[in-house]
């Protein structure tokens, strides 16, 4: 069992409170990703769990044991650093076996465990090389191998893929996912890249300014963002946000007036919305469609053709910019005047404070 529980965790650096009350329960064998913009505190949170920084207030429990004061190497964790942090003067084998050596393990046992980890990561031919002779991807695998050897209860990853080029990043992502599958341990992963978060996580924790904005499975966050920040952070290109006015509220349905006058009925049940209230309509680019019957009118300003999809940047008559993601190779061209249809069943409403208007509220 390797659960991690954070209860009202706070961290202050000097005068600045960097983490403001984090409550989180990570279950055994879960792959949890901390994601958020730079400065949101995700790396700090990871380092608190690792024991590299002291927790100012709150409790950290690993397997229901409070570990606030336990030194990093006794918490049953292993960490993969952003820069890999390999020991440059030691061979790959020595790098991987260092923790065992410090713990006093005999040479045979050390060699056995190192070999095992090397086999999992296909590092066997590199065991006698020094880090400077390895490529970026190989170094990364050595860093992971170093962590595996310790047989930890929880793996910590601190933005491990940021130093790799795009192609390698995809490859390593798959390897990490397969690793999670085969090792079956709890993994906590920090990244600023929402694609990594979406593809790897069992659950995502979105952080902003030292607090959790929302926790949930990737699709949870995609389909039911709790506020504008999460809605815009997850999904690429970003969700479109249009200022609209509530027209009527009835059983199971809210009708809003669009900026250029048209009306749109949304299948949202709300008890608190009133007519004439100003709210924000959120709709993802992939849920807009070019159609004669579209509710919004505008002109195409920029076309991005990626082959598999096309991004259209459309300016409405009122001056708002809409992003539309069309499948395949759209026939639309710059300066075309188009009508855009909003798929109402995928729409979101957000109040002026930025919170989502969820069914029932």
């Amino acid at each position, binding site marked *: 069992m390797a659960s991690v529980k954070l209860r009202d965790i706070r961290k202050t650096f000097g005068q600045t409170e960097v983490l403001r009350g984090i409550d989180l329960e990570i279950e055994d064998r879960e792959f949890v990703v901390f994601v958020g913009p730079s400065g949101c505190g995700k790396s700090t949170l990871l380092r608190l769990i690792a024991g*590299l920084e002291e927790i100012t207030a709150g409790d950290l429990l690993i397997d229901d044991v409070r570990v606030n004061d336990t030194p990093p190497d006794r918490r049953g964790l*292993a960490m993969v650093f952003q820069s890999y942090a390999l020991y440059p003067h030691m061979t790959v084998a020595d790098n991987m076996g260092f923790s065992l050596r410090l713990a006093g393990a005999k040479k045979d046992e050390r060699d056995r465990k190192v070999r095992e980890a090397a086999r999992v990561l296909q590092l066997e031919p590199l065991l006698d090389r020094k880090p400077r002779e390895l490529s970026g991807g190989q170094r990364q695998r050595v860093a992971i191998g*170093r962590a595996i050897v310790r047989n930890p209860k929880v793996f910590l990853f601190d933005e491990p893929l940021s130093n790799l080029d795009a192609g390698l990043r995809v490859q390593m992502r798959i390897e990490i996912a397969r690793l999670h599958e085969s090792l079956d341990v709890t993994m906590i992963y920090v990244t600023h890249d929402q694609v990594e978060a979406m593809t790897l996580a069992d659950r995502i924790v979105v952080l902003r300014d030292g607090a959790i904005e929302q926790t949930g499975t990737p699709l949870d966050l995609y389909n039911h963002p709790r506020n504008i920040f999460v809605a815009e952070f997850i999904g690429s290109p970003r969700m479109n946000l249009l200022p609209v006015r509530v027209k009527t509220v009835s059983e199971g349905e809210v009708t809003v007036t669009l900026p250029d006058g048209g009306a749109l009925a949304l299948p949202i049940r709300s008890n608190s919305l009133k007519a004439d209230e100003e709210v924000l309509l959120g709709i993802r680019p992939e849920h807009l469609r070019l159609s004669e019957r579209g509710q919004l009118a505008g002109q195409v300003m920029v076309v991005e053709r990626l082959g598999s999809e096309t991004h259209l940047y459309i300016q409405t008559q009122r001056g708002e910019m809409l992003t539309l993601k069309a499948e395949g190779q759209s026939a639309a061209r710059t300066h075309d005047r188009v009508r855009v249809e909003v798929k109402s069943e995928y729409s979101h409403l957000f109040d002026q404070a930025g919170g989502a208007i969820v069914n029932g509220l």
Partner: protein
Amino acid sequence: MTALTKTRRVNTLPLITPSVLVLLLWMVVPLAMTLWFSFQRYNLLNPQIKGFAGLENYKSLLADSALWTAMLNTLVLVASVLGVTVVLGTMLAVLFNQEFFGRGVARLLIIAPFFVMPTVSALVWKNMLLHPVNGLVAFLTRSLGFEAVDWLGNWPMTSIVMIVSWQWLPFALLILLTAIQSLDHEQMEAARMDGAGPIAMFRFIILPHLKRAISVVVMIETIFFLSVFAEILVTTSGGPGLATTNLAFLIYIRALLQYDVGAASAGGVIAIVLANIVAFFLVRTIARSLEEG
């Protein structure tokens, strides 16, 4: 080469030549003269007696027990100060790499000795501290109930080693501290996660990283320590007897006090040869760092 850099090709020769020429002269001329003089019989007290002496100067120098005493003293001085500065320097560098209160000011204080001119250092130590009657150290030892020690009289070499170490410890400290600070933080954190306590950290992570810096410190210090002069001149003048006469001081005595140009030049050649041996290794290390950096 792009078109841009081509049009900017400068004739670098006139820029570099003055420096090279001047250094060449500075090296070649005096060196050649020293070599020449070492084969001459030339004493300034009797300038009429001149002539080719062959290897006589060298023979008599090598037979002179004073030379061997001086070489031994040089060796003892260099080795002792190296030992003190490198060992203490490493320890202090590790210490000053940590955060503590008032680190900035403490650092200024601890490196101060290096910037004090050698003659002032020597005088301060001689009169204020080590003086058996008025010195502070004598006062302290007397207060503890022991007799005052005549440092410069009875322990001359130890005193010189103390003075030179005091002056050069900051040098070792600064260089080793700079080297430690270039150690990747994440590496140390990875070691912490691997279970390294302070001793393991020092032994397996910090010390290997410092290897290059320590060797540079050793080589540069050796080159300077071979020529320690002012401290000896001001405190013991090589004495008592020859107890603190190193090679540099011996040559000085021969040249400017006894006016024996021939012998002094022979001694000078020996000093140059010694220095060159160390220099060879230093240049190789620097060359390697040029490539990497």
